[in-house]
């Protein structure tokens, strides 16, 4: 009879935590880039009444779920260096929080357009 290894590794937790930060950073990056490059905004209006927010949110959720699935598949039975994961999680979360604040990126976009 096979014995089941009931000890949990930290890989599954690391995958879920890092993937959530990747999703947050994806939302920030999509917001920042689409504020700088105005021509991207209509493409992100998946649901036109909600404008580009609908596409940014949908794509960020997709990135989050895809990252989670990939990381979970490769780490679920592994013990990973959680300190590194923690640092990357904080960096990505900070990127997400900064990127989701549109005004500086709107101004940057307008400045770049006026320089052309």
């Amino acid at each position, binding site marked *: 009879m096979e014995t089941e290894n009931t000890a949990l590794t930290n890989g599954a937790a690391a995958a879920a935590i890092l993937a*959530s930060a990747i999703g947050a950073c994806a939302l920030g990056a999509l917001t920042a880039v689409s504020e700088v490059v105005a021509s991207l905004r209509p493409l992100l209006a998946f649901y036109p009444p909600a404008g580009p*927010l609908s596409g940014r949110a949908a794509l960020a959720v997709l990135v989050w779920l895809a990252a989670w699935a990939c990381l979970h598949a490769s780490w679920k039975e592994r013990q990973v260096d959680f300190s590194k994961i923690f640092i990357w999680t904080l960096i990505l979360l900070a990127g997400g929080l900064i990127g989701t604040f549109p005004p500086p990126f709107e101004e940057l976009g307008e400045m770049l357009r006026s320089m052309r």
Partner: protein
Amino acid sequence: MGLTDRELWTAVHGMILWTIFLLGFAAGLAGLWNLRPECVAVAGMPRQLRRLLSGLWVAAAAAWAAVLTGTFVLYPWYRARPPEGANLANYPRAYLQANPEFAEWHDGMEWKQQVAWLAPILATAVAYVAMRYGLGLAVEAKIRRTLMILLTVAFLTSGVAAFVGSFINKIVSMH
């Protein structure tokens, strides 16, 4: 005195769903804080764990419902373009942009709409990890602390959303 559709959705989104999230957050944070080795041996811990998991999943579900209603129901009303000669008080974005003293609240609204989406993503990750590891989190101090940080960031982002949303609603209510 009845509520219009817009007032009803605003109340459901801002007062009911985010309040449920707040309650789930508080239960989740307190539960994670107490999930320490010295506390796990205490009788009744499995029941507390069930309460913690319920709180976290309720918080995650409420955050999803709040951002979905906010993005797909309320935000289109907020950003609707007014027809020529319309009363701007019925078009919040146009009203804010037309009044220099309130124009910065529109920036706040744009931030709120994006940043609020972090709350359900983070809350779902926290709920999943807590469910998968259960009482094992008591000996995984780094994971437990990280979960508390993520949950707190989720709370702060929802706090930004609630703060900005309630002030904009004070300036120009949706009727």
